[in-house]
């Protein structure tokens, strides 16, 4: 093939994809989730065990996760028990740090704020960013309801469900389409985050508040007790971390500069062949 024969790479139109409400709240959430995760692990370390039910079993067994350290003939080891299965997690969970100065904590200081044990500060940081996250979520829901982002891009339609298998195959083959709106998998992911994971992690967080349990006792019934709520809160955290990892991978694969531009300026370069509309740029 000679250079003359090669068609110049056609570009789709530049579309205004993200409103200012979506862009600002996106970055606010990014900051919030970072601080909430690291301060949350600090809070977890104050009692590195999770239970099912209203209370924590000290004289009976209802723990589903326990992280700790045990003494063995070879010296102390980190141990993690999940649903009755015990794993040696020395170096990561239960025991971390260096051989000369081991730290006996649930999650290592590298992933907690502060890096040392300080439950009081973990709580200060966690509750501050909890308020900010909820406020940003409220603003985003209101704006997205009014400007149509929710209806257009988030809530899956019938065509999204029927288009799901093809979209899954396309994603698996890394054939990523840059359209005006989201693909079915994207819609479902964001729908799950905004309508399932965020509400769940906020409500289970509130269930841990003895004050809120008095105000809204149904929280205890919906989640099956304060300790179950604490376990769900932790589980949703794990799902949000997984979402974050996949989110970053997809941004890198889909073209990080174009994706970042759309989340900063709002303008997004679509795939070749995307029909132009009024308001687009070439």
């Amino acid at each position, binding site marked *: 093939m000679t250079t003359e024969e090669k068609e110049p790479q056609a570009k789709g139109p530049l579309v205004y994809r993200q409103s200012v409400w979506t862009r600002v709240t996106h970055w606010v959430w990014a900051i919030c989730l970072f601080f909430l995760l690291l301060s949350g692990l600090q809070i977890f370390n104050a009692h590195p065990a999770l239970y099912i039910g209203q209370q924590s079993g000290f004289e009976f067994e209802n723990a589903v996760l326990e992280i700790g350290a045990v003494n063995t003939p070879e010296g102390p080891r980190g141990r993690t028990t999940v649903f009755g299965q015990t794993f040696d997690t020395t170096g990561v969970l239960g025991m971390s740090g260096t051989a000369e100065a081991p730290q006996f904590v649930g999650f290592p200081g590298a992933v907690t704020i502060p890096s040392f044990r300080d439950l009081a500060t973990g709580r200060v940081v966690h509750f501050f960013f*909890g308020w900010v996250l909820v406020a940003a979520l409220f603003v985003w829901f209101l704006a997205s309801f009014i400007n149509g982002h929710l209806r257009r891009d988030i809530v899956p339609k019938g065509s999204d469900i029927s288009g799901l298998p093809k979209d899954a195959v396309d994603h698996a083959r890394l054939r990523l389409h840059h359209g005006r709106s989201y693909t079915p998998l994207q819609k479902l992911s964001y729908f799950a985050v905004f309508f399932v994971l965020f509400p769940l992690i906020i409500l289970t967080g509130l269930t841990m508040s003895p004050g809120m349990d*008095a105000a809204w006792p149904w929280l205890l019934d919906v989640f099956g007790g304060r300790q179950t709520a604490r376990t769900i809160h932790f589980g949703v955290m794990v799902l949000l971390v997984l979402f974050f990892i996949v989110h970053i991978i997809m941004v890198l694969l889909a073209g990080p500069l174009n994706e970042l531009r759309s989340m900063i300026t709002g303008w997004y370069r679509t795939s070749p062949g995307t029909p132009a509309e009024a308001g687009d740029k070439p």
Partner: protein
Amino acid sequence: MSNIILSRRKLLIGSAALGSSLALTGCDQFDFLGQRGNPVRQALEQANVLTYRAQRALIGDQTLAREYSVSEIRQGMKPNGSTEPMTPEYLFLKGQNFANYKLTIKGMVEREVSFSLDELRNMPARSQITRHDCVEGWSCIAKWTGTALGPVLDMAGVKPEARYCVYHCFDNIQKTLAGDVFYYESSDLVDAYHPQTILSYGLNDQVLPVSNGAPVRLRIERALGYKQPKYLHTIELVDDLTPFGRGKGGYWPDNGYDWYGGI
């Protein structure tokens, strides 16, 4: 296809580099938030004031904490914090089975009053099976028996300018070079007059044991465990919390925990 492989390889290398640099640097760049007087930390602490105001606005003053059935008492009440005060004053009272114990109500009241343990036990009793939530994250359900604090405060006659109750305790939770630091806590009058706020002297149908705060422990059921002061001896009505301890309204609040403790 070669493009995809390349981007996958780049991705793997990139994420490995990112992950290892994160693990190496750790997160000690935010350790300054642990400094108690740090202005950034003080700004973040304002969220706790918001939480207090929001919960006071949302939760009715008389709204009860959940009470559980007897079958939910599945274990003894886990002791935490001070479990055996060793001050001479406390040991003396304990040696006499608290026969000479007095609970004193003082400060901004019409008349300072004191009650013996028998006098408290002869007041109308209330029992409640409630969930104790420790700030560390665990919970424990137990039956608490005592007399409501509100009517006891009324016997002293709370002056209108009083805003807080300060709860003084026998236990020296911390020993420093400057002397013992005694546990204390405080609450607003909403919590003090809440129907479930009791001066408890019974636990799980037994006399309240020393490890759980004998002879009298206050229960504030809509707050965390550190707002349930053990070994209580004096309740002082005040309009300002700054003269006590380090001025934050309680031993743990003085150590950086939020004063309200409802979350």
